[in-house]
C-alpha cells in the first residue's frame, strides 16, 4: 500500500472523527440500520481502489474486536515516548476508527445510495466475515447469532472504541495471523519468507482466504511502516512486547531494517539498548533483592508459611498475632530498658539495701521474691534522685542548677517513660487496628479474589518438589476457605428444631455465665482469704520462709488453673451446641473466654489496687509497688506454666487418648479462641506490670518466643486442620480490636488510676515523698517555671490542661466525633459504590435489550424487503 493513500485517509478520518462521536455513533444505526453494507461502498468510491478494498477488509476485523477486545494501554516509560508512539500508530488507529465512522455515519445517506451497491465487492466482504469471523462472533454475546450489521454497530460502540490503541491493533493482527497459521498447519509449511506461504493459503481453496491473506499482508505492511517510524529504542521495545511468535518478529524486524536501508546505525542500537537493559535488569535485581531481604527480616517467615499452608489462615492468624504481641513487647522493653533500667544500673544507687539472699530452692524464680525483690526488676529499686555523671550536685531536686555534668531526673523519667510508652503503644494499636479494619472490611468488596487466586497464585519459579507440594496445599486450603466463605448459606430448620436450638443456646450461655460468675466469686474470696492470711502473718513473723514463699503462689496457681479449666468447659458446652459455622463457633468461644478473663482481671486489679495499695503498712510492706510487681510476675509465669501444661495435657495427651482409646482417626482441632485469649490475658498482665516492674516486658518476650516454638511443634504433632475451612480475614482485626479495647484500655486505665490517685510508698521507689506519682510531672513544671521566669505559664497550663478532666473529656469527645464522621463517610462511599455497581448492571441490561431490539428490527426489515442478493455463505452461517 502506498503512503499517499494512507495520508489521504488520515485526513479524511480527521474530519469525520471530530464530527461524529459519542452518542451520535450509536443513535445513527438505530435510526436506520439495514443498508450499512451499501454505505461502505459509497464511501469507498471516494477513495482509490486499493484503499477501498483494504478498508472493506479491515471492517470484519472490527467486528472481530467484539470478541477479542484488548483495551490495553501500551506501557511506555514516559509520556513523551507515548506521544511518539501514538503518532506513529495513528495511521492504524485512525484507519480503524475511520472504517467504523463511515459505516455508521453514512447510514442516513444510504437510502439513495443503496441501488448503486457494488454487489460483488460487498459480497466479498460478507463472505469473509461470515467465513473467518463468523464462528467467533457467534461465540460471543451469549451464544446468540447476530447479523453482521448488528455486529458492526456493536463494534462501534464507544466502550469498544475508546481504548483502541497500539496493543489492540497488534493483537488483532496477531490474532489474524494466528488464525491463518492454524489453517496452514494442515499444509506443509514453506515459511522462509512471508510471501512463500502464499501457495499454501491458495491451496486452501477459498477466495476469501486469499483475501484474508492480502489482508494480513496489508497489516504487516502497516506494522512495518509503523515500526519504521519509531526510534530504534522504541522499536526494539515494541517488537519485544509484541505477542507474536519469534519467527514473525524476526521477519518484521528484517523488513523494517531492509526498509530503513540501514539508515539507522545498527551498531548503536544493541549497544545502547543493551546497556539500558543491563541497568534495568540490575535495578530490578536490586529491587527484588531488597524485597526479599525485607521479607527475610520478618520474623518466622518460613515457619508462618508452613503453618499457613497446612492449617489455613485461621491458625495462621494466631501465630501472626503472637508475633505482633512480641513486637509490642520488644518496643516496651527497649523503651523501659534504655530509659530506665540502663541508667539505673549504671548509676549504682548508694541506698544499697543489705539484701539477705535467702536461697529457697530456686523458688524465687517462680515467686519473683527473695533475691529478686531488690533488683532492677521492680519499682522499689529505682531511686528518686538525680542520677548524675560527671560533676556531682549537692541539691538533689534542683537539677537545672547543675550546669555541669549530665543529670538524669529519675522520677520524671520514670513517669514520662511509662506515659510515653503507653501513649505510643496506644497509637500503634489504633493504627494497626484501623489498618486491619481497612483490609478486612474493604469499602469495595474486592471482587475477583477467587479468580485471582486460581490464575495468579501459582508460582512458576518453584521447581523443588517439596515446595511444590507446600504450594499446592496452600492454594487448595485457601481456595477451600474462599469457597466456604462464598458458599456460606443459612440452613433452614423447622420451627421446633429452631426452638430447641434456641433453648440449647440459652442453656449454654447460662452455664457459661454461671461458671464465669462462680469463678470470679471464687477468685474474689480466695484472694481475700489469702490477703487476710497475709495480714495475720504480717503481725507475727512466721517461721518457715519456704512455706511463706509458696503461699505467695497460691493465688496465681488458683487463677491460672481456672483459666485452664474453664475454657475446656466452654468448649464442651459449645460442642453440645453444635454450631455449623466454624467462625461463629470461634466468635462465641472468644466472647465467653473474654468475659472470663476480663472479669478475673478486674477482680485482681481490685485486689491489688484496692486492698494492697490502700493499706500497705498493715501488710508489713515497705514497698507495695514492688509487691504488686512481684504478684504480676508470678501471674505471668504461672500463666506460662499452665499454658505449657495445657499444651501438654490438653493437646498432646488428648490426642494420644482420642487416637488410642477412642480409636478416632482425627486429631483434635487447634483451639484458636482459647489460645488467643490466653495471649491477650498475658499481654494485659504485662502492660499492667510495666509500671511496677519495668523489666516485665522482657519476661513476656521470653515467654512469647518459647510459646511460639512450643505451639508450632504441638500444632504439627497434635492438631490437624479444621474440618470446615474458613477464612480468617476478619480474625486478625478482631484480635487486634480485643487487644486494644478491653486489654490495653483496661491496663491503661489501671495504670493511670495508680499514677493519679494512689499514694506511692514513702520509703522506696522513684516517687517516694510525693502524694501521687503524677506530682513528679507537676513539680518539674513548677521547678522549670521557678528557674526560668519566661515559663511561668507552664504550671497553670499544666493545671488546666492535664489536671482538669474537662480538657481530657473534650479532647476525647472531639476524637470520637472525628472517628464517627470518618465512619459515616466510609459508609456513604460504600453505599455509593453499591449504587454505581447496580447502575452498571442496569446499563448492561439496557445494552443487551437495545442490541436485541436492533437485531429484531434488522431481521424484520430484511425479511420484508430483501434488497440485495445474499451470499450463500452468509445464509449458512447465520441461519
Amino acid at each position, binding site marked *: 500500500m502506498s503512503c499517499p493513500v494512507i495520508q489521504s485517509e488520515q485526513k479524511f478520518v480527521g474530519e469525520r472523527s471530530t464530527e461524529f462521536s459519542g452518542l451520535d455513533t450509536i443513535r445513527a444505526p438505530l435510526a436506520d440500520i439495514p443498508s450499512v453494507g451499501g454505505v461502505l461502498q459509497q464511501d469507498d468510491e471516494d477513495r482509490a481502489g486499493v484503499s477501498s478494498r483494504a478498508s472493506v477488509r479491515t471492517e470484519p476485523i472490527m467486528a472481530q474486536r467484539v*470478541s*477479542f*477486545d*484488548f*483495551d*490495553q494501554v501500551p*506501557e511506555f516509560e514516559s509520556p513523551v515516548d507515548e506521544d511518539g508512539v501514538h503518532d506513529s500508530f495513528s495511521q492504524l488507529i485512525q484507519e480503524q476508527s475511520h472504517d467504523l465512522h463511515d459505516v455508521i455515519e453514512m447510514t442516513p445517506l444510504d437510502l439513495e445510495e443503496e441501488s448503486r451497491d457494488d454487489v460483488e465487492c460487498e459480497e466479498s466482504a460478507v463472505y469473509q466475515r461470515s467465513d473467518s469471523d463468523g464462528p467467533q462472533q457467534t461465540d*460471543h*454475546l*451469549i*451464544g446468540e447469532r447476530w447479523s453482521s450489521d448488528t455486529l458492526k454497530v456493536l463494534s462501534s460502540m464507544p466502550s469498544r472504541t475508546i481504548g483502541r490503541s497500539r*496493543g489492540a491493533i497488534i*493483537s488483532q493482527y496477531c490474532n489474524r495471523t494466528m488464525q491463518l497459521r492454524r489453517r496452514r*498447519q494442515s499444509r506443509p509449511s514453506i515459511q522462509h519468507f512471508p510471501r512463500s506461504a502464499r501457495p499454501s493459503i491458495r491451496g486452501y481453496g477459498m477466495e476469501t482466504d486469499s483475501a484474508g491473506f492480502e489482508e494480513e499482508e496489508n497489516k504487516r505492511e502497516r506494522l512495518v511502516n509503523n515500526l519504521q517510524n519509531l526510534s530504534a529504542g522504541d522499536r*526494539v521495545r515494541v517488537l*519485544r*512486547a*509484541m*505477542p507474536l*511468535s*519469534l*519467527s514473525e518478529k*524476526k521477519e518484521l*524486524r528484517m523488513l523494517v531494517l531492509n526498509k530503513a536501508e540501514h539508515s539507522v546505525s*545498527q551498531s548503536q*542500537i*544493541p549497544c545502547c539498548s*543493551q546497556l539500558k*537493559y543491563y541497568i*534495568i*535488569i540490575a535495578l530490578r535485581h536490586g529491587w*527484588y533483592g531488597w524485597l526479599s531481604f525485607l521479607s527475610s527480616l520478618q520474623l518466622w517467615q518460613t515457619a508462618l508459611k508452613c503453618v499457613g499452608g497446612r492449617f489455613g489462615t485461621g491458625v495462621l492468624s494466631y501465630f501472626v498475632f503472637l508475633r505482633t504481641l512480641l513486637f509490642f513487647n520488644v518496643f516496651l522493653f527497649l523503651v523501659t530498658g534504655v530509659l530506665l533500667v540502663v541508667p539505673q544500673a549504671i548509676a549504682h544507687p548508694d541506698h544499697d539495701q543489705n539484701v539477705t539472699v535467702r536461697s529457697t530452692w530456686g523458688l524465687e524464680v517462680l515467686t519473683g521474691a527473695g533475691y529478686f525483690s531488690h533488683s532492677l526488676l521492680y519499682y522499689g529499686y529505682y531511686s528518686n534522685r538525680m542520677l548524675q555523671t560527671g560533676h556531682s550536685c549537692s541539691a538533689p531536686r534542683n537539677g537545672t542548677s547543675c550546669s555541669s555534668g549530665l543529670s538524669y531526673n529519675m522520677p520524671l523519667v520514670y513517669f514520662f517513660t511509662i506515659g510515653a510508652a503507653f501513649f505510643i503503644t496506644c497509637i500503634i494499636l489504633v493504627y494497626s487496628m484501623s489498618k486491619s479494619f481497612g483490609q478486612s472490611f474493604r469499602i469495595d468488596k474486592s*471482587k*475477583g*479474589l*477467587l*479468580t*485471582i487466586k*486460581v*490464575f*495468579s*497464585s*501459582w508460582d*512458576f*519459579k*518453584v*521447581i523443588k518438589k517439596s515446595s*511444590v507440594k507446600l504450594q*499446592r*496445599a496452600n*492454594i*487448595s486450603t485457601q*481456595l*477451600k476457605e*474462599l*469457597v466456604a466463605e*462464598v*458458599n456460606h448459606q443459612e440452613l433452614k430448620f423447622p420451627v421446633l428444631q429452631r426452638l430447641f436450638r434456641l433453648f440449647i443456646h440459652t442453656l449454654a450461655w447460662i452455664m457459661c455465665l454461671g461458671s464465669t460468675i462462680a469463678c470470679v466469686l471464687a477468685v474474689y474470696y480466695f484472694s481475700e482469704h489469702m490477703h487476710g492470711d497475709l495480714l495475720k502473718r504480717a503481725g507475727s513473723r512466721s517461721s518457715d520462709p519456704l512455706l511463706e514463699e509458696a503461699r505467695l503462689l497460691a493465688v496465681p496457681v488458683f487463677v491460672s488453673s481456672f483459666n485452664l479449666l474453664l475454657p475446656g468447659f466452654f468448649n464442651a458446652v459449645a460442642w453440645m451446641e453444635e454450631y455449623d459455622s466454624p467462625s461463629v463457633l470461634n466468635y462465641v468461644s472468644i466472647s465467653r473466654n473474654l468475659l472470663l478473663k476480663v472479669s478475673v482481671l478486674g477482680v485482681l486489679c481490685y485486689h491489688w489496687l484496692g486492698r494492697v495499695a490502700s493499706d500497705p503498712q498493715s501488710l508489713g510492706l515497705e514497698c507495695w509497688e514492688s509487691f504488686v510487681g512481684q504478684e504480676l510476675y508470678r501471674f505471668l509465669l504461672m500463666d506460662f506454666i499452665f499454658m505449657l501444661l495445657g499444651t501438654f495435657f490438653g493437646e498432646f495427651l488428648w490426642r494420644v487418648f482420642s487416637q488410642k482409646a477412642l480409636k478416632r482417626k482425627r486429631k483434635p482441632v487447634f483451639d484458636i479462641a482459647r489460645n488467643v485469649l490466653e495471649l491477650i490475658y498475658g499481654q494485659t498482665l504485662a502492660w499492667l506490670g510495666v509500671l511496677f516492674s519495668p523489666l516485665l516486658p522482657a519476661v513476656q518476650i521470653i515467654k512469647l518466643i518459647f510459646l511460639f516454638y512450643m505451639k508450632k511443634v504441638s500444632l504439627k504433632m497434635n492438631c490437624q486442620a479444621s474440618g470446615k475451612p474458613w477464612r480468617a480475614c476478619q480474625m486478625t482485626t478482631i484480635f487486634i480490636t480485643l487487644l486494644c479495647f478491653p486489654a490495653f484500655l483496661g491496663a491503661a486505665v489501671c495504670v493511670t488510676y495508680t499514677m493519679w490517685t494512689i499514694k506511692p510508698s514513702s520509703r522506696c521507689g522513684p516517687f517516694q515523698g510525693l502524694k501521687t506519682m503524677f506530682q513528679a510531672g507537676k513539680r518539674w513544671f513548677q521547678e522549670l517555671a521557678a528557674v526560668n521566669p519566661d515559663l511561668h505559664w507552664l504550671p497553670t497550663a499544666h493545671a488546666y490542661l492535664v489536671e482538669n478532666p474537662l480538657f481530657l473529656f473534650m479532647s476525647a469527645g472531639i476524637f470520637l466525633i472525628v472517628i464517627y464522621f470518618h465512619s459515616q463517610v466510609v459508609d456513604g462511599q460504600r453505599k455509593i459504590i453499591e449504587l454505581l455497581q447496580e447502575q452498571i448492571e442496569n446499563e*448492561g441490561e439496557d445494552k*443487551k435489550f437495545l442490541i436485541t431490539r436492533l437485531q429484531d428490527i434488522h431481521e424484520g426489515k430484511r425479511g420484508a424487503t430483501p434488497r440485495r442478493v445474499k451470499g450463500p455463505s452468509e445464509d449458512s452461517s447465520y441461519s
Partner: protein
Amino acid sequence: MGNKQTIFTDEQLDAYQDCTFFTRKEILRLHGRYHELAPHLVPMDYTNDPDVKVPLALIVNMPELKENPFRNRIVESFSEDGQGNLSFNDFVDMFSVLSEMAPRELKAIYAFKIYDFNVDNYICKEDLEKTLNRLTKEELTPEEVVLVCEKAIEEADLDGDNKLSFADFENMISRAPDFLSTFHIRI
C-alpha cells in the same frame, strides 16, 4: 566468544536480542540448554536456520518445567503447531515471555493461552476445571471444584457470557498484585 561464530551469526544474535528479552550471552546459554535436551537432534550450528523441532516430551523434562502443573500447556501454547514441538525460536520465545523483563500485557496474553486448554479463545468452565485440578491435584473434592469454577466465572465475567474472554482475564490480572512475579521462570 569463540562459540558465537560457530552457533549463530552476528546478525542472528542481533535479531534475537532485538526480538526477545535476552542478551547474546543468554541466547547462547539457551541454545546450550536446547541442545542438551536432544543432542542428536539439535545441531550446534544454527547459522543456516535449520528446521529442527524438539518434541514436547523432552522439553517438559527440563527441571524448570518438570514440577509445573501447567508444563504441557506452556509448551503447547508456545509451539507453532500447537502440538508442543518447539523450534529453537519457540523455545527462546517461551522463556522470553516468562522472563522477568516481559511486560504485564505480554505475560497476560500468554497466560490466557496457557489456561485456555481447548484453544477457543475463551476460558470456559472446562478450562477452569482443568486448571484447578492441576493446581490442587485432588485436594479439592469434585463438588468443590465445580463450585470454585462457578464462583470464579461469576466473579470475573464482566459481560455475562459465562466464560472468560481475554478482556475479562486481563481485567482480573490487572488487579492481581503478584501476577508479574509468579508468572516468571528463571532459566
